[in-house]
């Protein structure tokens, strides 16, 4: 199956350059330019406003950037408004000059889509012009400006093999929210109660490297950032940062990652290397970072960091991770950190909950997790290698000051080298900064950050003395 990458961002004037040479046959043309375009990426659009040599017969051409190799830019013909058909960019003219001396038209490079919502609108289209009907489609976000999408609903991918929402490698966060020039979804309007910012009801979906800042929604009824509705087989949510939901969202509290559909017993959903923090209910409701217990299939919850989850009200609970309610389901929960729970209820601080009040009937495989000293004993981390009753000083985050949080592990953290090697499936080995735990041969840390470093490059030095 083919993979098609399209860019998502608000920069509609990245660069404008004039083709100088072209090789290859349609629809793929390897083009060089008088000046090599700067700032462009695979997935951007090359737009050309053309007319026949000498004028007339106008047609706007659209090409897709598919490969960038030094000065060689591969442009794929997509469409033209005049219906002239596939042509190389070299030899398309502005209409200026004469038929004997035409003027080459420049290529204006732009993002393919300006918002995630409109990208999703195209995923939903049964007759896509910009990718094949059975492609693996990658929407690659750029940090041109903050995305304000408040209601994206991936509910139909037609015949596409998969959909990935990712971030261009230059625009990925560095494991901390608020990284300048990086991709962030910061809605300025609410999603509506129980509707998520990113709502997913398709199989084979990946969302990665995105920050969702809910800080502008305290006065709205938004209570979910990512919602799984049941058609979520082989969904992967990884390397994201979700933070700062306060206020009273209404009928039910803030659950930034929530599964409400069961899926099938052989479906798999993976939540890997995410950071979720400052989820604070202010008016008589529960709060939970990850409410996952409705899932009927296999759930992998690995290497996430959760901090500062607060419920409000005498009987309301604060939950880190709840999983494993459904009979026949399997929840694998490993290498996670849950800290900073606040609840006024008796036994209300629940770092790890096996279904509501530990009444789940699914299989819960827990190991190498950490709960701090805020968690009620019945909901502490359990299983091989788990750490309980740890203080914030023990966990040793770099920065927990509100407004500047950095939940990387500092030098003295007990989480360092306290995790278990979980392999490379679904890129669980890639930490919140992009560090490859597998390639570097380190002992795994708990949480989303791999702070401890490999000693593979510094082999033991043995001195033999005679």
């Amino acid at each position, binding site marked *: 199956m083919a993979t098609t990458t399209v860019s998502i961002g608000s920069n509609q004037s990245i660069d404008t350059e004039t083709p100088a040479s072209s090789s290859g046959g349609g629809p793929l043309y390897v083009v060089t330019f008088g000046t090599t375009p700067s700032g462009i990426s695979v997935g951007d659009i090359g737009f050309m406003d053309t007319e026949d040599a000498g004028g007339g017969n106008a047609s706007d051409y659209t090409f897709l950037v598919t490969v960038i190799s030094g000065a060689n830019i591969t442009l794929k013909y997509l469409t033209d408004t005049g219906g002239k058909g596939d042509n190389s960019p070299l030899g398309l003219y502005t209409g200026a000059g004469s038929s004997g001396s035409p003027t080459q038209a420049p290529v204006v490079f732009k*993002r393919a*889509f300006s918002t995630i919502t*409109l990208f999703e609108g195209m995923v939903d289209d049964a007759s896509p012009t910009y990718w094949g009907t059975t492609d693996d489609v990658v929407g690659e976000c750029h940090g041109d400006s903050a995305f304000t999408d408040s209601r994206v609903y991936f509910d139909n991918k037609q015949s596409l093999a998969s959909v990935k929402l990712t971030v261009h490698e230059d625009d990925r966060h560095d494991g901390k929210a608020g990284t300048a020039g990086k991709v962030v979804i910061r809605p300025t309007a609410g999603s509506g109660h129980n509707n998520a910012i990113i709502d997913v009801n398709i199989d084979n979906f990946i969302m990665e490297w995105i920050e969702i800042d809910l800080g502008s929604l305290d006065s709205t009824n938004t209570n979910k950032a990512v919602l799984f509705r049941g058609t979520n087989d082989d969904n992967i949510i990884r390397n994201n940062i979700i933070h700062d939901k306060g206020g009273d969202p209404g009928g039910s509290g803030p659950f930034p990652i929530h599964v409400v559909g069961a899926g099938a017993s052989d479906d798999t959903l993976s939540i890997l290397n995410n950071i979720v923090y400052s989820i604070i209910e202010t008016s008589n409701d529960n709060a939970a970072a990850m409410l996952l217990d409705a899932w009927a299939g296999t759930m992998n919850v690995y290497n996430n960091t959760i901090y500062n989850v607060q419920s409000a009200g005498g009987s309301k609970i604060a939950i880190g991770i709840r999983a494993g309610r459904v009979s026949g389901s399997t929840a694998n929960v490993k290498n996670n950190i849950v800290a900073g729970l606040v609840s006024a209820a008796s036994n209300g601080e629940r770092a790890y909950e096996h279904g509501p009040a530990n009444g789940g009937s699914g299989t819960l495989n827990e190991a190498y997790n950490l709960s701090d000293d805020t968690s009620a004993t019945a909901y502490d981390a359990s299983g091989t290698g788990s750490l309980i009753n740890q203080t914030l000083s023990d966990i040793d985050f770099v920065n927990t000051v509100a407004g500047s949080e950095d939940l990387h592990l500092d030098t003295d953290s007990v989480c360092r080298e306290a995790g278990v090697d979980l392999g490379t499936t679904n890129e669980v080995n890639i930490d919140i900064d992009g560090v490859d735990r597998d390639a570097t041969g380190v002992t795994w840390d708990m949480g989303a950050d791999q702070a401890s470093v490999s000693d593979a490059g510094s082999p033991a030095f043995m001195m033999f003395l005679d």
Partner: protein
Amino acid sequence: MEIVVKVNDGSSPSSYRDGDIVQAFSMQQIYYCHAQHKCHVRNFDFTTDGMRVADPLLVKFLEKTNTYKFERLNSNDVKRTNLITGEESIFNTTPNDNGERINVYQYVSRRLKNKNHLIFRSNGLEYWYGKSRSDIDVDSVWSDIETHTDFLQSDHIHFPLSDIEKRMFLPMSCCTHGHSHDHTDLPVHNACLDCTCGCVLSESSNDFISERLSPIFIVHDEGSDEEYNEITYKRKYQVPYWDLTSILSLDVDDIRNTNKEVDVRTSLPLRPAADLLSRDKVVAGVV
């Protein structure tokens, strides 16, 4: 406000339908999007010691879009100033009553590894900003941009939609009309769609704009943690553009030809009334 309208029905019952309002932008969103382009971190250089240059425009932008300023005081202490209230707090490696602590050396060292960092230095000590504001005064931000650059806010009145989007969807402008007449009278009511009736025009409220993107849904398990909405239609509101061809001078064939770019966005004095342009599909009996 600007809206982006679906053209042609999607293929499945849950897909967007012809006329659905897929996306909506307030003017504040539009202006702020462009402001972010002008004040993008990559537009500003580094100092010789690897800090970000404290360019006056960049610093003003950060002060007006963030809640806090953080200033390193020494090897251990950081002062946080709330830029809205002026409240100051000191933090260091010892947790305060809220458990807040910072290892400033580690924090700054990590940030400086990022080529897009926004760490500044004054008198040998670093400072930075944090926590985006929810109440950004976008006009004030643009005033600074106009002071320090040749860009004008008035040249940035449309959201930068892509060419693909302008072919696959229909972008339109609209606003709130303060009726100075009996707007229940149908002909006059229609006049609010082409702005010939002397209304006072203003930007639509954020709540109004947000509501245009609502889905139609059924609530299940209400009141429990398992409460959820079953979405039956992706959007509640539509623009029946096919009924507005005459009054808005629209060509339906052009709009529905996804090989043609159609963009009927206008400047404020020409914007039709948002409440007449969009209609609730449930109230209208469409669904």
